[in-house]
């Protein structure tokens, strides 16, 4: 269970929200010169990091407003919530707790098959 602090309504249960996938995706500025591969990248490819992830949420069962969040996908800890018109926080603000790209965090992974 995740508690999300909506920038407009305050802290609510995650089930009130819907996730909108990766944040800060910009539509290509020069669509006519894009190759099929570039279009494929824009339409289908999204980052899928284990660790720090910039994502969009919408408070569907509340104010219905969109906002952005930074979450650690290896622990589900929400590190920062900010409005869509605010600047994207720099990655250096957050600490990635994983020792290797596919490693397990010491708390919160739920994967008990892996020896820490």
């Amino acid at each position, binding site marked *: *269970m*995740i508690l999300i602090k909506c920038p407009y309504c305050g802290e609510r*249960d*995650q*089930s009130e929200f*819907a*996730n909108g*996938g990766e944040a800060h995706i910009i539509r290509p500025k020069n669509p006519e010169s894009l190759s*099929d*591969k570039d*279009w*494929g*990248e824009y*339409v*289908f*490819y*999204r980052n*899928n*990091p*284990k660790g720090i*992830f910039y*994502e969009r949420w919408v408070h569907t069962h509340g104010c219905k407003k969109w906002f952005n969040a930074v*979450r650690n*996908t*290896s*622990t*589900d800890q929400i590190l920062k919530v900010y409005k869509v018109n605010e600047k994207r926080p720099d990655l250096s603000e957050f600490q990635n707790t994983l020792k*290797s*790209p*596919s*490693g397990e965090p010491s708390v*919160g*992974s*739920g*994967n008990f*098959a*892996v*020896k820490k």
Partner: protein
Amino acid sequence: MVLLIVKKKYSIGSILKNSLSNNENWGKMWRSPNPKKHYDVIIVGGGGHGLGTAYYLAKHHGIKNIAVIEKGWLGSGNTGRNTTIIRSNYLWDESAYLYDHAVKLWENLSEDLNYNMMFSQRGVLNLAHNEHDIKEIKRRVSANRLNGLDTMWLDKNEVKDLVPIMNTDNLRYPVLGAAYQPRGGVARHDAVAWGYAMRADELGVDIIQNCEVKGIKTDNYKVEGVETTKGFIKSKKIGVVASGHTSVLAATAGVRLPLQSRPLQALVSEPIKPVINTVVMSNAVHAYVSQSDKGELVIGAGTDGYNSFTQRGGYDVIEETVRAIVELYPIFGKMKMLRQWGGIVDICPDASPIISKCDVEGLYFNCGWGTGGFKATPGSANVFAHTIAKDEPHKINAPFALSRFSDGRLIDEHGAAAVAH
């Protein structure tokens, strides 16, 4: 004669022999060697798909110097975290061929591996709850029949005959009919991993558990090997079959994959006497259920609604799932649930897998199985082994190439999935 029977790892003879020593002397099913410095092929991921790939590489393609590297223990990922449903009633030709290739292999797998998969072809029902469902499901039944699959349409009374405990009328979305595939069913998930592991090991495959691959090393678009917690291991061919973690590993080799990783939950009830002898799935009421041989109900539904690598998932998803189950089967209303877990599934934009080469020479991916990889285990492993050995896809997995996300030849199976993604 007796000697011959005892020589096999599992036979009446070996059971008799081991019963004499209180069953304390059964040997290990596979070795646990230290990794060598170099392998011809390295498979990253010791689940059913990965172990099966190693088995078919060794058995059909004559490659003996193979390692399977697993971060935890064998089958501790999604192979041990699914609801074991097997079927091939997919809409599009490409998927029907791929998944039915798997079902055909399932049918002989216990014999092939001489290890009981407990494969039970008890049939799979996909319920229709509204006019749109009926049209969509009948279309799928017709498509399946054109592809030679044994799917058929059942009306409400036929469904009720098969599953008498189902509440077909007194619910918001009444049951109006169903697609039925009698060859579908369930199998024992652990047995798949262990069976493949044991036979691959006998063919000389090194199975290395509790060893995490930290990165894939490449040089000028060629793979060189993998960096692991047990040191660097060289190989010119690497097959990544790491489900939810595949895109994370791909990134270490500079490869981007169109995958999103999400938790998919399942839960198991206390054991009860047999009440349901088939597998029932419902898209609109959104849950699926079957009963294990132990008597537990095995229940699942959709993924959690956000990317995550935590193998737990949220309670609201369980609540929704159980609500659907109780609506369809009021008899389960007072049952207790014993266990719940989440597996990290990698979902493709078109809900079909990727079994493909990539821009890096010697690097192969078998991923994107999303919420339905277990059913495909033997078929997936079989064609992936072919892809790695020949450096070109088998005709069955050729359409499942990574290139479809730039040339647009998607295989859109959102509608055919067990439940909506």
